């Protein structure tokens, strides 16, 4: 039984571009303990986003490579519905480019994971979910923006909505892919402060970044070079 909340061993991932096979991950391993904030640091093309996608089951690693364990259980063999449930409830994603749905309001974007989870029982669960999402957005300073569309928000506000969405179903792990990469230093700092606040309340975080200053906010830094872990430091 592993002591880690999230663990990846010997992950390999090769993309095929036309006739060319491009290895992105070459046996990378990763661990994340409960309540830990780990930064995955690396230059462009080092495979850090791919590693995050594999940890979040957005992608699958090569057939003969290792695997991913969540709470000690292998997740590679999960069925489609269980993989969807894992992405919906166990982890939450934050992306560099926010990735909000432009047709939905701020509140509706933040409620999206709840809606997906509730399915046909959404009508009965709506009030409670809405209250939770409103509190979250209020805590992120977005109470005056609930009915606004993403296009009406600043970059920092959009990223805060994206974080609220990632936390809507109270996942145990936040998977953040360059969450400050598209923001100025001050706004990026504010976003990191929000994430740090959640981390202090027990949220486990795996955050991809190429910025050592951002990585410095984490408990531990895993350095990725050419698809392999090149080193770790606390």
């Amino acid at each position, binding site marked *: 039984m592993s002591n880690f909340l999230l663990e990846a061993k010997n992950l390999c991932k090769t993309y095929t571009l036309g006739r060319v096979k491009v290895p992105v991950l070459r046996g990378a391993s990763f661990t994340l303990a409960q309540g830990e904030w780990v930064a995955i640091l690396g230059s462009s093309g080092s495979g850090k986003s791919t590693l995050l*996608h594999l940890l*979040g089951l*957005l*992608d699958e690693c090569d057939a003969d490579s290792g695997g991913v364990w969540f709470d000690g259980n292998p997740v590679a063999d999960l069925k*489609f*519905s269980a993989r*969807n*449930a*894992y*992405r*919906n*409830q166990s982890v939450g*994603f934050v*992306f560099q480019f926010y*990735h*909000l*749905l432009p*047709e*939905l309001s701020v509140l*509706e974007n933040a409620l*999206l*994971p709840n*809606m*997906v*989870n*509730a*399915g*046909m029982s*959404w*009508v009965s669960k709506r009030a409670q979910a809405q209250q939770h999402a409103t509190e979250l957005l209020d805590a992120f300073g977005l109470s005056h923006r609930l009915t606004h569309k993403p296009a009406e928000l600043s970059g920092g506000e959009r990223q805060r909505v994206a974080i609220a*969405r990632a936390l809507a179903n109270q996942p145990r792990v936040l998977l953040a892919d360059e969450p400050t990469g598209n923001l100025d230093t001050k706004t990026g700092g504010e976003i990191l402060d929000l994430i740090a606040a959640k981390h202090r309340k027990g949220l486990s975080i795996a955050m991809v970044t190429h910025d050592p200053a951002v990585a410095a906010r984490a408990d531990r830094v895993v350095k990725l070079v050419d698809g392999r872990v090149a080193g770790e430091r606390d």
Partner: protein
Amino acid sequence: MYPVQLANRYLTSRIIPLIAVAAVALCVALVVIVVSVMSGFLDMLRASGRTLMGDVVITNPIRGIPWYGQLIETIEQLPQAQAATPLIDTYGLVRMPYPEGSEKEVVTTNVWGIDPSSFNRVTDFSNALYWKPPTSPQAAAAMLPDDPRLKLSDKILNDGLNVIKSDTGEPGLVLGIHVSIVNERRRDGSYIPRYSQWFMPLQSVTLTLVPISTKGTIAEPRERVFPVVNEFKSGVYQIDKNRVMISLDEAQKLLRLDAGTLYDMQAPPNADGTLPVLGTSPAKVHKVLVRAKPGVTPEELKAAVIGAYEKFALDVEFDPSKVVKAPRIGNLTIMTWEQQLRDLIAPVEKEREMMRILFSIVYLVCAGLVLSIFWAIVQEKTRDVGILRSVGASRFGILWIFLQYGLVIGAIGGLCGVGLGWLVIHNINFIHETIGQDAPAWSYVASFIIAAISFAMSVRGLTTGVLLSTLLWLVLGITITLVGIGLTLHHGTLIWDPSVYYFATIPDKVDWFTAITTWCGAVIFSVLGASIPAAKAADIHPVRALRYE
């Protein structure tokens, strides 16, 4: 629930679904209009056929049906039959009272000799008579102020019903409303004499009939002057244009089908030089029309009439007082009105089915439109698919978003199409008559003014450097100019020619069966059209979707 919410947002936040809805609506409207007109045409044909012929027709042309009074009695005893009437059906020449001078117009007509009282019980003759006073103050109020019917009394109706000029007691003649060129049809469907002095119920015509012997030879033509006592309008142009009616007695006399003495042509003459008398030669008719009782189908009545005719023929056969026997059942025809009009109805039925099949291609157009529009939408929404997958949405959920999208577009588009079809069908005669007239001056003047404004806006767009605005105004200006030129050159086009399509008006009832099936087809094919892009969306790899630029 999120598929519903997202489908709703995708539908209401952009213009492309409206284009898809409009395209589906136009396709559905096209089918509804075309098939409704065809169905209405067929229904009118059927209704008119039955109204004018009863349900079952016994026919023995040329030789005729003797002892028809006895046959009618036998038939009217049937529980299935409501009434039966004898009929003479022949061709003749009618010399009209116009123009002025000695050279009068002569028209070839189909002449029906009718027994007025029984004919009115079998057919809808009293309703078909056109010249009669309004039946109620409301009906009078609905007529145009100069409608001649407002000044008529019941006398003209009764004269028409009895085919007799009551003032003089002369046998009269009823013309089809389009036999005379004097009657002019107006927009509201009423008729007015072009020249009041030739208002036909005040005129007389000369009818010439040619008797034909049982051997098929032509005898001396006979003619007689008849006062026109009324005109009838069946609604079937070909009938209203060609048919005239006189009383049965007069028709029989003119055709030598009336009762007479039957001489033995083979025997040697009597001492006084006359031929020995064999008996009575009964009056004959060409047809007997039979009306079914309510709830009895024409086929049921036909079977009963066949039985009744066989009984009648046997009774005549074994009646020694009747020298002239009834034709055997194999020598005459007994048909339902539909069989009688089969040559007319069958091609129209086939044309309608052909139209249905040909226009089914519209469903494919719906599917193709939705497919291409959705393909573009899925392309545009690729990143949304990735986002949804990252928050745990299933592939089925993604599929359902786009299928719902197609469902709503098909349902709303189909509904709009049915509505548009109803609107056009409901006003089709008004539209047709408007197209049939010269375009009013205000329409092309207004077109040219709007076009001038559009060109001015285009020039303004050019000066401000906005290319899209310039182009849009230019296209609008050119289009409106072309419309204006078209309206200027338009001098009325007759699309629905009554002489070709039998009826003076275009059917204006929606075929709701077709409307509903077309709506269902539009929904099904819209969903099918949406299914391919929807499946494509569901198959998009989440990571590739998130990285999609």
